[in-house]
């Protein structure tokens, strides 16, 4: 990032000599000019983050609405009067989380050196998002005989989502990890009385929550990877150079 920053500051300077000196400041001489040119990464990162954030906020609003409608979650009445009958802090949290996840996935892919190649197209991503919304829908609306059945079904659906749209080990691992963390955070929140579930069956929350989190992580990762696809070539070349 600092490299691009120096490049950006140098962009005001003209003339061959000054350009040379500017590039001389760059720490890695092995890096050709084109590589640094394509990776205007700060802007890129910011744009991607913003998009992911808004997607996260939007999905959080919509999906939370589903849950609130079915009285799965309850927020204290004083917060209920806000716009979408949910607490104000939920969408930003989800947005931030999704931005982080969406940026994390391609980053980890590049770190591992195995760029994600499976079904890299927007229609597949859209399908993935639709299935994710469907899983949420099922969790909120479908009446199951018991909670175990519901949770197992959703878990199977989530795994199916991963298998259909991701199929990378890193994605699976990250999904599991983040899902566990998020579940823990939710437990803490509920424990502290920020909100509550109407019929908790897994300590304080619903047992399907980790599945939802997992599916969400996979979905956001999918979106993030697709967004980062434009930078993939560059990243690849850079790793080659290194």
């Amino acid at each position, binding site marked *: 990032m600092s490299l691009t920053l120096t*490049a*950006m500051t*140098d*962009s005001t*300077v*003209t*003339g*061959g000599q000054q*350009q*040379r000196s*500017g*590039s001389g400041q760059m720490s890695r001489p092995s890096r*050709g*000019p*084109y*590589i*640094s*040119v*394509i990776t*205007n990464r700060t802007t890129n990162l910011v*744009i991607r983050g913003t*998009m992911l954030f808004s997607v996260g906020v*939007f999905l959080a*609003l*919509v999906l939370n*609405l*589903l849950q609130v*409608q079915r*009285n799965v979650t*309850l*927020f204290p*009445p004083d917060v*209920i*009067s806000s716009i979408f*009958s949910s607490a104000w802090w939920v969408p930003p949290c989800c947005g931030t989380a999704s931005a982080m996840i969406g940026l994390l996935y391609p980053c980890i892919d590049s770190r591992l050196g195995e760029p994600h190649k499976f079904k890299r*197209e*927007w*229609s597949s*991503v859209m*399908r993935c*998002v*639709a*299935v994710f*919304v*469907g899983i949420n*829908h*099922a969790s909120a*609306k*479908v*009446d*199951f*005989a018991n909670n175990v*059945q*519901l949770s197992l*079904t959703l878990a*199977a659906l989530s795994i199916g989502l991963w298998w259909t749209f991701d199929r990378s080990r890193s994605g699976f691992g990250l999904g599991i990890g983040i899902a566990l963390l998020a579940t823990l955070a939710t437990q803490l929140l509920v424990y502290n009385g920020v909100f509550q579930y*109407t019929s908790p069956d897994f300590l304080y929350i619903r047992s399907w929550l980790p599945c939802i989190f997992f599916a969400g992580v996979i979905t956001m990762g999918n979106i993030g990877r697709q967004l980062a696809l*434009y930078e993939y070539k560059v990243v690849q*070349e850079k790793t080659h*150079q290194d």
Partner: protein
Amino acid sequence: DGRQLTPPPRMTLRERLREKISAAFYHHGLLCASYPVPIILFTSASILTCCYPLLRLPLPGTGPVEFTTGVRDYTVPSHEPQGDLGERPDWYRGPPVAYIQQVLVKAAVSPWDSSLVPVDVFRSPLGRVFSLLEEIRNHVHSDSTGVRSLEALCLQVTDLLPGLRRMQSVLPEHGCLLVSPGNYWQNQRELFDSDPDPLKTIQKHEPKGLHTSATLRDLLFGVPGKHTGVSHYNRKRVVTYTITVVLVSYDTRFLGSLRSRLKQLHPSANCSLRDDHMVHVHFKEEIGIAELIPLVTTYIILFAYIYFSTRKIDMVKSKWGLALAAVVTVLSSLLMSVGLCTLFGLTPTLNGGEIFPYLVVVIGLENVLVLTKSVVSTPVDLEVKLRIAQGLSNESWSIMKNMATELCIILIGYFTLVPAIQEFCLFAVVGLVSDFFLQMFFFTTVLSIDIRRMELADLNRRLPAEAGLPPPKPGPLRPREAPPPPRPSPHTITLQTPAFRNLRLPKRLRVVYFLARTRLAQRIIMVGTVIWIGILVYTDPAGLRTYLAAQVSEQSPLGDSGGGGLPPHLGVAPVFHAGDPTSTLSVLPAPEPTPLPENQSQGHHGSAGAGPRPQVPPAVPQITWGAEDEEGWRRLSFRHWPSLFSYYNITLAKRYISILPVIPVTLHLSPQEAIETRHPQDTRHPPPPIPKVSADLQTDLTLYKVAALGLAAGVLLVLLLFCLYRVLCPRNYGQNGVAHGRRRRGDLPCDDYGYSPPVSEISPLLLRGHSMDIECLASDGMLLASCCLAGQIRVWDAQTGDCLTVIPNHGLRRSSSSGCWEQRDGWDSVGGATEPECLGSDCREHSFSGDGLSEDEGDLLRRRSVPARPTLFTDQPDLTPLIDTNFTCQPPSHLATPPRGGFDFGGLVERAYLEHESPSPSTYPSPSSAASSSPPSAAHLQRRRSLGDAPTLPAQDRASTAGTQATADWDSSVWAMELRGNLIAAGRSSGKLELWDAVEGSLRCSNEDGVSGITALAFLNNRIVAARLNGSLDFFTVEINKPLGLLQYRGAPGRGSMPPSPCYSSEDVISCQLTRSVQCAHQKPITVLRAAAGRVVTGSQDHTVRVYRLEDSCCLFTLQGHSGGITAIYIDQTMVLASGGQDGAICLWDVLTGSRVSHVYGHRGDVTSLVCTTSCVISSGLDDLICIWDRSTGIKLYSIQQEVGCGASLGVISESLLVTGGQGCVSFWDLNFGDLLQTVYLGQSSDGQGVRQLLVLDNAAIVCDFGSELSLVYVPSVLEKLD
């Protein structure tokens, strides 16, 4: 390769299955493509048949549906559907959720006394609710079957929902659901009596914000807030409220006795309400805005999915037609599945609209796309039938595999044994199967039709090209092909606005900019705000909705009951005119018609009907009962009952409640009573200021408040989003019309959005020396030759940029009359960067006379150029010293005004010399070997010569040896130039072909066999092909007679596209012989000539391209297909041939077969240059647009808007790097994404001039000429990138 007709002997089961499947698909494809129309008819018929049962499904709607039955013979409907349902709707089965019994109380203090305060209007009437409640609660009916009380019959409710803590004090919990205004005071009279301000208490429970559903006040009063009369400004002074009893079971006797009891206690004299029918109200699944949002979201995702999927359909005649067919396939398969399910008795209990997107996503469009792609990728020359069949059979295995997998998954889902999921799975299975059916029949057939249409269109365009046959269908087809419409493929994004010219943006940014440009967001926000305000106004309790609802309820019943409608005698509540009330009352089963009690108040006129009585003095409140009271609940929000029940977590969705006829209760209170029940504070209330205004004012104020609030919120929202945009896109993206100033020199190319590509260490080398605009550029990787309009050829080292040779004499002859150019040479060697200003006028003058053909200018030049002559024509020694001295003593003051007519004998001499010139190159003597004695550094020496010096000896004797018989032609200009090894081949306008030694600058041989000007040259190996103005094509062979040992190779090994040319050493005797001349290669002048891979390709103005074999000059193909002159041709080692014409069309040809691979219209106007990479074709046109096409599919990937006049300059450095020229700069683009990587500025003085030519050298250097200067941009990092 799915289909193999001869199966190998040993095959596994899987392979055999695969074989069978693909064979079946093959036959099926043949069938579909053979009989498209019958098959489409068949599929449409089957779709319609399968959808037929859908007609019986009710249309979706959110409003409640009602059904009226008589009270007398009412029985709880059974669960099982009965045979003769008649008019009975489907939902009328089983017991209702609850029976609603409302006791409608109208109370008034009468006669009204002037001593009464406004509070008295409602305080004592409200106070009576408690006694009524007592009465109802304690009512017990006992008969032979037992004792019934309200406790046993009413709906027992438990807790309120935990979210409704606020309402806990008001709504009943753990007991009968009995709602009345008394609930405000916990049903305790004492609390009411001690309440100083009942209105405040009522208001306290009203929601603060804006509420869209029923408010608590509506719930408790049971009538709309406006009609209660509980306010200070009640002019009618009648208070209306209801006591709502919710019963869980229906007991005729109990209710009858309750009714008669209440009527007895509080008789309503003139009440003529009908009470013989009850209304069953069925509530649909409620879809509020909140529920709509997820639904809309899923639909948006669905459409995005469909969009992104259908975008992938390529290479078909009508992209949108096929996309439509794909969507139709999916949709109708869904409809079919629903229809089939209904047909077989599986009524969909799921909300169809909700699961629909998921079904689409599950079924997916993938198969359709795969089919299309597979069919399209079959060989084009096959018959359509076979193409379809092959495409189908190729994909058969994967389609079947996918289908099997999906079925498996759905089967697993079916075994979850959750009813909802099972139902979904059932639907999905039927949907999948019907989708498969439709794909196989409907879509395949549509595809075959489409492909056939494409073939036809293609054929029509191609036919005239086939061996010059006349077009078979000359009639209607000609006009279609005659105007070459620049067919824009719909998905390409062409940046046309000037704001986007410099930069190709990433797609997502482009979307944002598109939104911004069209101000879509603002408009949406505006519309949204308006809609929101509308909704607020509509749903506001005091607002429009209640008014509308009242209007509606007065006019018509709330809805049409299910299928049958109402029986005529029960349907619309008739307006009850004056008549005998007893006739209706007698219908009542239980209660006897109660006689009117004697002690009714004097305000009553019992015998009259329901009509208002104008004679009544206004001071006396008149309690009237009208038809509107009969079903007062209709005036309530239709969410009234669902919300009441939802507080106790009881949903009414898809269930119904039965509303029993109301029990009217009339209360008349005396003023004394009102005064007695007064609270001490009541009198302190100020009297109503102006009662006339205030009543209306109140509602008005609410309206205004709502409007103002909505407006403010909307403005805030707009502002917020505006700020967001500003943050996201800091520049003024919205205004592309604004001229954004001229780019200052040295500024980086920063687009309008703040994105500026960072600089790097690329710095151009400026090659100066030419006096006029450079016309020809040639290079072999190591050397670079350039020729300007003045005819001067300079040879440069492509690595360092040093000028090695000036093919000088000619240049000097023309230029040095002023001495200024030699002086400039000196400056160049010193390294001065400034172009001398003294050249300004001179240069202009020269450039106007550009081609050197105009006579007077030539004379002028000749007159001026005397001093330089000796360097060339040293075989006329008498003139040399004279001119030489003349030159040296030329004073600089005469620079601007050279003496006219002073030295015009030079021209005469030259002409004389030309006459003596030996025309035969075959008798080529060998004195050129003498030139080898000159040191190789002669050129350098000569270049570094400072002004005033005479030409050096080496130059002189070199010229003397070379020029004796092979002489240069200075009258004509160089029209074409090529460089191989160190030989420069120059074709002149006089038709002369000259070979120069690039290093030494000597003329090695020349050939004057042709007289027509050489328009294009190709130099490959040892052959030179020259195309002439008259359309003939000459093949020359360069023969080198030299000792073998001296053979060495030079040239670039870099790209391997050109075989390294042998270096001709100066000892060799080089001869250039015409081996073959094709006289009428083209009817019109040859415009383009390219040679590669043993082929020579010519393009001419006669609209044809010809391919010749280089070895034997044999014409292999004549390629026709353009409807304009050929302007650009590209051919490379891999036999890729592309041609572009004046019609803006680009054709790709197969050089081996001579067939046209693809044909696209890309440009308005001429195609000026063409380059191919392995994956794409890059073309530029006179419209200054650079288009990048996919080479295999011929689809335009994107286009780059160039600056005016720089359109033709482009080059490809590597597979992914494109260079284009601009105004004084070159830009590097990433070919894969169309992103601007970098812009390099060529020099300080280059601002105004565009790059006209651009040449990519093998060592990743770029040479471009702008005006008279050359710029060498060395791009070292590209080589790293190529590794």
